[in-house]
């Protein structure tokens, strides 16, 4: 089948739309989760949503909506435990992880459903998504994106420093709950695309990738949304052309590949940054003794190959573990 024919198929168009919106929404929320060092929250909520899906299978209602409701309740519970308790967020997450997964598997058994029907939610089945489900996915994702981008100054401040945000008059509890609910909603949005067990990857991996190269929050948020979209749409297209390859894992592996490619770049950038960071200008050692280098083999300059580092009002050249600063016709050891 040629590419054009494939993209003309209605189920493929639905899948592409779902992938596009999921890819934008999941990293947008994921950025705030990573910022608050709650990268695994999406995973915890994914496990809780399993119970929601099973509840839908048991009662014969739409698993998407029961998953949204249960995941939102789980998110609120995590926030309450985090706020009221002395325990760290990770303990609260662990408690829900296991409860959610066990509850889901138990309820699916009670509902007399096969493991296969639960599996479509655990690992995603984007190509079987119905028209209604696409509309729900798009609607929920649009709300998530609008809030995550529109309220970014407030959400950034709260995630950066809760105490400061509270004294600045922000309702910290409301914003924390908002992020938790957004995370729960985007988990269920991504449920059909990559599946509940892989949801967190789409929320976290693009953020981890972009922060290898970014220096500001705004560029991290924007670039991870772009990367998330590329991964989810790209993964879907790859899976469509290659036989026996499922879209869900392809999307996640593609986004992980992005991280693997960017990681060395990040290491190199940080290394370079460290080497070129200015030496402290008031370094008292420099004032103690005037040491000049002996006969110097060449003149330091832009093209000499030695790293130039700012040091107060002049430049030091890093030369075999020494710092050479120009002084008249010779170089001083700094």
């Amino acid at each position, binding site marked *: 089948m040629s590419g054009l024919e494939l993209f003309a198929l209605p189920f493929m168009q639905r899948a592409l739309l779902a992938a596009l919106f999921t890819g934008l929404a999941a990293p947008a929320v994921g950025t705030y989760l990573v910022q608050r060092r709650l990268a695994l929250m999406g995973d915890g909520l994914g496990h809780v949503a399993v119970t929601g899906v099973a509840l839908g299978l048991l009662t014969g209602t739409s698993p998407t909506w029961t998953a949204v409701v249960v995941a939102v309740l789980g998110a609120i519970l995590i926030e309450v435990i985090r706020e009221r308790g002395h325990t760290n967020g990770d303990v609260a997450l662990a408690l829900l992880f296991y409860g959610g997964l066990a509850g889901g598997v138990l309820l699916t058994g009670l509902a007399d459903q096969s493991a296969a029907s639960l599996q479509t939610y655990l690992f995603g089945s984007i190509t079987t998504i119905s028209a209604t489900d696409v509309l729900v996915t798009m609607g929920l994702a649009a709300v998530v994106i609008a809030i995550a981008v529109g309220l970014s100054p407030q959400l950034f401040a709260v995630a*950066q420093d809760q*105490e400061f945000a509270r004294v600045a008059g922000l309702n910290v509890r409301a914003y924390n709950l908002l992020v938790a609910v957004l995370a729960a909603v985007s988990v269920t949005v991504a449920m059909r695309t990559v599946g509940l067990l892989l949801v967190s990857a789409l929320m976290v991996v693009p953020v981890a990738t972009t922060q290898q190269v970014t220096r500001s929050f705004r560029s991290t948020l924007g670039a991870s949304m772009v990367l998330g979209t590329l991964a989810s749409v790209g993964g879907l297209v790859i899976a469509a052309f290659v036989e026996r390859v499922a879209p869900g894992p392809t999307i996640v592996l593609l986004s992980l590949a992005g991280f693997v490619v960017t990681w060395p770049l990040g290491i190199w950038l940080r290394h370079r940054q460290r080497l070129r960071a200015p030496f402290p200008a008031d370094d008292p050692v420099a004032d103690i003794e005037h040491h000049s280098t002996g006969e110097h083999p060449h003149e330091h300059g832009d093209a000499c190959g030695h790293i130039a580092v700012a040091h107060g009002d002049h430049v030091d050249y890093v030369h075999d573990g020494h710092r050479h600063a120009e002084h008249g016709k010779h170089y001083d050891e700094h």
Partner: protein
Amino acid sequence: MTDTALPVRLVDGAVAIGGRPILRGIDLTVGSGEFVALMGANGSGKSTLVRALTGLRPLAAGELHLFGTPFDDFAAWQRIGFVPQRTSASSGVPASVWEVVASGRLTRRRLLRPLSRSDRRAIHDALRVVGLDDRARDGVSHLSGGQQQRVLIARALAGEPDLFFLDEPTAGVDLPNQHALADALRQLKGRGATIVLVAHELGPLAPLVDRAVVMRDGRVAYDGPPLADHEVHHPDFGEPHTHHHHATPAAQHDHAPDVAAPLEGPR
């Protein structure tokens, strides 16, 4: 509410943490334009007091007025600048110095509005006061600890408040950065800001202090003219001829009990 109202007035304030009384019978007023240093040993309650004054810790008893308004009705948060006790300004995601300082402007911004020209001017001004205007685009995690502390002060400054609370801004900061901090606070003081500063040791900030309040075991033990760092820990606050370091007789203890089960709150 008038501008002549006292920035801080706490009468018979008490704070309990986890049911244990920590601060008892605190009377504290801070006049407009005053520079007050809250001092004391670790666990004496000086940080708890600042947290109570900013509303981060609820008062178990007593009355708190900020700028003449009872605390429960207080909503003029743009008049308050807070520098929390932190060693780092970085979080899980990169953020630029500009972005962190800009978040201090939220007290004056409305929802869903971009930064106005006066917002940008205030952020630039705050960065200039702490001497970091050339680092605005840098990632905050690339800065040294002392510079990050200055970023946090610039963040409080960006909201153009009248009253500053600083919780141990000099802790773990090297001497050159302490001097840069002192310069920034001197400029604030010159603009007529009221400053309440928690400090273990004053160092280069000492010449700025108008009044020292020394906490001991959750009570105000001294309230008066500034003291030298070594006098604070004396039982008799540095009477002449007793200028020697004595071991503090009371053992240091942490008041806050540690609770480990999920729903057992500290409150």
